């Protein structure tokens, strides 16, 4: 199992999903959408449902591609990880983009990245003596290895549920933000 293929799957999904999101952000398109007989709730929901559909379509394509080219099946744990990562990403970036516009998303992530680095270099060393001798990439690998070595299906079930709840909360939050939006 391979970090790069997970990363690849994640990236593809994000690019397609965010592209679809930003196309509708143009003021002319949002005027158009709001002139159609759809409620704002439906407009937001279409993005969330669309994100799920795109994710599964892309994973399916990667799965088939891998099967045909490399003659091997992707481990279900990898698929679950990609789906979870995508859902987490969407859960944070959609409400943020509805509130502040997706242009600032990059800035938002840069800030998050810095925070992540800060945590990685100052907070984590306190947890486990082994950690402060590795660099960031290795730390992520170590974390991923730990995760995959867990055989407990219940743990995965828990992760999936947490993700779904997070997604649902994000959905509701986005509806709230968009309903109040002034054009």
């Amino acid at each position: 199992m391979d970090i790069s293929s997970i990363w690849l799957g994640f990236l593809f999904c994000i690019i397609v999903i965010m592209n679809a999101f930003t196309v509708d952000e143009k003021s002319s398109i949002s005027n158009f959408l709001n002139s159609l007989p759809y409620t704002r709730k439906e407009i937001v929901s279409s993005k969330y449902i669309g994100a799920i559909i795109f994710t599964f379509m892309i994973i399916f394509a990667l799965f088939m591609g891998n099967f045909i080219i490399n003659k091997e099946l992707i481990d279900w744990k990898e698929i679950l990880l990609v789906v979870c990562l995508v859902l987490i990403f969407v859960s944070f970036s959609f409400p943020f983009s509805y509130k502040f516009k997706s242009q600032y998303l990059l800035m938002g992530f840069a800030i998050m990245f810095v925070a992540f680095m800060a945590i990685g270099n100052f907070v984590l060393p306190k947890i486990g003596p082994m950690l402060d001798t590795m660099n960031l990439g290795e730390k992520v690998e170590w974390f991923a290895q730990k995760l995959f070595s867990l055989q407990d299906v219940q743990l995965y079930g828990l992760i999936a549920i947490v993700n779904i709840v997070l997604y649902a909360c994000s959905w509701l939050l986005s509806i709230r933000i968009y309903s109040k939006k002034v054009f």
Partner: protein
Amino acid sequence: MENVIELRNVNKIFDSFRLNDISLTVKKGFVTGFIGGNGVGKSTTIKLIMNLLQPDSGTISVFGLNYKEHEKEIKQRIGFVFDENVFYENLTLAEMKQIIKPAYSNWDDNLFNHYVKTFELPLKKKIKQFSKGMMMKASLTMALSHHAELIIMDEPTSGLDPIFRRELLEILHQLMEDENKTIFFSTHITTDLDRIADYIAFIHNGELVFTKEIYQIEEEYAIVKGGKELLDRDTEQEFIGIRKSNHGFEALTANKSRIENIFGEMVVIEKPTLEDIMFYTKKGAERFV
């Protein structure tokens, strides 16, 4: 005669601007022209009518319904025509139809095809390749193809050549043969309204100056031209706005018969254009600044 759009005592406050106690009605079966300069509240009013904004106070009803409870129902019956392209640029007209059609329960493919043919619109060309005139026609086609009862047009002719504007007028005339259709036409190109508008609503500085039948405007308003010696403290009060030059003065009055009584043959009295009314109203307001 029922009101298709009714704004009652609507107030909307922004940082730099406010819409003040607007009460506007748009009657069914007629064309209401909405005029006013730039930045006076025209687009804000339209956004309120379309529910892109909510008023701070007052009520807005369309077809006698309010947006809070009947948003989808109202929008089913309205067709919007914007001044810029609002469709996905990389799609063709046929593809846009596939997106729009399922939204409307009254969509009529026959009507759509009829307009596409009449307007000579290409179905397989990407929208970003459309000329401005074609885009307006495409927008109008979509607005009409679902049997919309109310057509709201926001600066539909800006940037279009005079020939096209006349063609549009013809199209609107044909539309108005149906007494169930209503058109709300916001524009600053007032000459477009001369031959089609039944009512004129004039907005200035966030306030609705008047809503009148067009022949009423002719009866009440007039351009008055005369020698400057006729102007004094009292007579200047009769006019909305005055322009003085070396050769005399030109002014607008809202009370034509009164001016005729006061000045009689001493002045030239002419029919005002809508532009005159907008120009002199603004000029008059500046006087008091």
